[in-house]
């Protein structure tokens, strides 16, 4: 007996195949995002250019069946198509509570993306009856953007409040020709014991048909990912 040592290619195939079986499950987004982020031995570009298109292809059993033979060609074509597409995120989205991580203290969550070149303005609205919180920020690739924070709304049931200089530093990355927006946010939360630096990795990922947005958030202080599923409210403007 001998043991087959995994190669990067086998690893990719294994991850992709596993995820393909659960392509519609929320968990896919929870686990693929950190995997992508942590896969150091494969260049990030390779991951982005190949992995996501492959995942999309594998959602279809027919596409998955001819994967080995057409892998390279299909991936390249998909990547090229996405690179030339309009911003899939653009427009307004509303949460699907039944398919999302439980949202309390809020009961409604809307996101609106307005794109201009490679920058994006994200308007966020969280609401519970008459109570409402809104904020907005414009971010883009390059240097981190510093955004003032009036209130940390992500989980108001925790004794954790915006601290430090009441700002957040946001690094932005567009992936897969605009299908995925990845934000890495650093902020300081204040608690009863003092201040604590926190990182939040947020993936905004649009489905292949453009009607579903999944926001996966990994907080450095939280053991479970937070997954919010949105459906499109309005058509996105063409850029």
């Amino acid at each position, binding site marked *: 007996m001998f043991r087959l040592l995994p190669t990067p290619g086998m690893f990719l195939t294994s991850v992709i195949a596993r995820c393909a079986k659960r392509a519609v499950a929320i968990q896919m987004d929870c686990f693929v995002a950190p995997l992508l982020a942590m896969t150091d031995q494969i260049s990030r570009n390779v991951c982005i250019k190949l992995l996501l298109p492959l995942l999309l292809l594998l959602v279809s059993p027919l596409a998955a069946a001819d994967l080995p033979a057409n892998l390279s060609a299909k991936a390249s074509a998909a990547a090229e198509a996405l690179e030339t597409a309009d911003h899939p995120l653009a427009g307004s989205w509303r949460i699907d509570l039944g398919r999302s*991580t*439980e949202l*309390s*203290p*809020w009961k409604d969550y809307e996101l609106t993306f307005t794109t201009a070149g490679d920058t994006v303005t994200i308007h966020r609205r969280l609401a*519970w009856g*008459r*109570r*409402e*919180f809104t904020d907005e920020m414009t971010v883009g690739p390059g240097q981190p953007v510093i955004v003032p924070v*009036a*209130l940390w709304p992500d*989980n*108001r*049931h*925790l*004794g*954790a*409040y915006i601290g430090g200089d009441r700002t957040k530093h946001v690094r932005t990355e567009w992936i897969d020709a605009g299908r995925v927006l990845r934000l890495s946010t650093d902020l300081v*939360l*204040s*608690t*009863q*014991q*003092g201040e*604590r630096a*926190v990182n939040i990795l947020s993936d905004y990922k649009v489905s292949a048909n453009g009607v579903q947005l999944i926001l996966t958030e990994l*907080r450095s*202080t*939280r*053991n*479970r990912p937070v997954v919010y599923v949105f459906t499109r409210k309005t058509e996105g403007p063409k850029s």
Partner: protein
Amino acid sequence: MRFSLALVTLLAASSVLSGAAADPSLIARLEPKKVARAPATATLVPLSENWRLDGDLPVHALLISLQGLANRDYPRLYLEYPKSWQWEIVRPLVTFLEKRHGVKFDRLEPTGADLSAVALAKADAALGRFAKYAKGVVVWDKSVRSSLIVAFTVAGVEDLVVVSEDQLALAAKHGLKPVVDLRGKFTGQTDAQIYSWAYDQYFERCSRDYYVVMGGHAGPEMQPGVADFGIRQRAFFTDLSANPKHTEEIALLNKILGRQNVPSIVLGWHSYAKDTEGQHTTLVGNYGLIMEGLHNLPNVSFTSQIPLTPDFKFTNNHTVKPDETRKAEKKVYVAAAATDAMGIGTWTKPGRGKIPYTWQVLMNWAWMNPPALQYFYEDKTPNDYFIGGLSGPGYMYPKALPADKWPALSAVGRDLMKRLDLRVLEIMDYSEGNRHVGNTDLPKAVVDRYYDQYPDVIGFINGYGSARTFDLRAGKPLISYDYYLDVQRPVDEAAADLEELISLNPQRPYFLLLHIRESNTVEKVSEILGRLSEQVEVVPLDVFLKLAAGAPTYRTNYQQPGDPIDRNP
């Protein structure tokens, strides 16, 4: 005049001294007279699930008004609300009254397939027994909802049963004739106009100690469970809005509240359709009045007259002595408190007694609803611990209370805490925010007042949602909730929330105070705590506070000038 002012000033100044005794005449003024002992027999009438205006509400309104009149000088009539009623102690209290007070209930329960006929038969039977306590009827207009609320005022002042048009024949059968007829009177009028008319006609004859905001459920439904007590007390009823955008309504409400004695009681609940809890309770507090929710708290005209049994004394489950100290270990300590849950939450649900648990007592029930409090105190398990609230004697927001209104209220609060064997006071303030936006924190000046005016406590807890006011003075901590357990929060996510807090607060000991909202069961809380990867110790709140007093890993913090403010629009 000058002499009077000087005297008032002197009295006010003297009462500012911390620890001053409560003015005994204050509670005496408010307290319904007690009978020497509970009645040997009483009538019990079951009510249906239907509280719609086009359903059974007219019959229920008749019975509730009749109850207020029949119970005015003696507890005679108890209404058995449906099992789904928000205040879930209606039935356990019947058992308690039977067992501990020896009350024998005579159940009036006609049966039949026609539910509306059954409902009318109940009213017929009840009128047969109690119509003699009424002088006639007030007829409300089924096409104008607010006319029913006005009718409750009229019922109390004129000793009239509240009936709708189609109940007139039934009333006549029992010798009750129309005295006041509101049919057609308010057609096309706004609520401000309707209640202004009622104010002009009846306010002078209404109680200056009780006002009822007959809100809560709005539109096609009304749950006027507290109306019997309001009628008994001859209170003025409205569902006027405290929302600044309703200028005419809030103007009249200000006029009414400004005419009430200070302090006095505001019964009921704000209208879900008009304003918010934060707006209404803030306004009530601005006048130094005491809010006693619920709008559907039932049978108080009956229970308010029944004294404690002679063999009973309020005793709490203290684990530590007031002057005792406890040394904390390097671990996470958890205490769980349920503040809405005595009566409307989980007291009767599975799991109680499984882990140490804190229950907030509505302290005015000591004189307003003694059998209910005796029931809870006698039904407690060794793991149930009681604390006082909410922010004082009744539901009030300390930031909304004018400074000069504090001494009299605090004196009552201290007196009730002593009477009820309570050593911890819970504070909540929604005048500048809520668990979503704004803040629920206390400025230092308010914290100073609590430490000054409640010197006998072993500590305070603060918040509703999480809050960030922390303090420690003379071994008495003020700890805010670090977590609010939403009713909808699944066990897995709640466990992840707590683990995140444990991660965010790395020092040990860490004092994690949980607010358990209403219908979350003790069983669920226990399951959440059992899922945590780091071992925590769940302790009674008094132990928690003593441990926190000895190891202040929390930072002193008050509301800051830059903190967000939201007036609960």
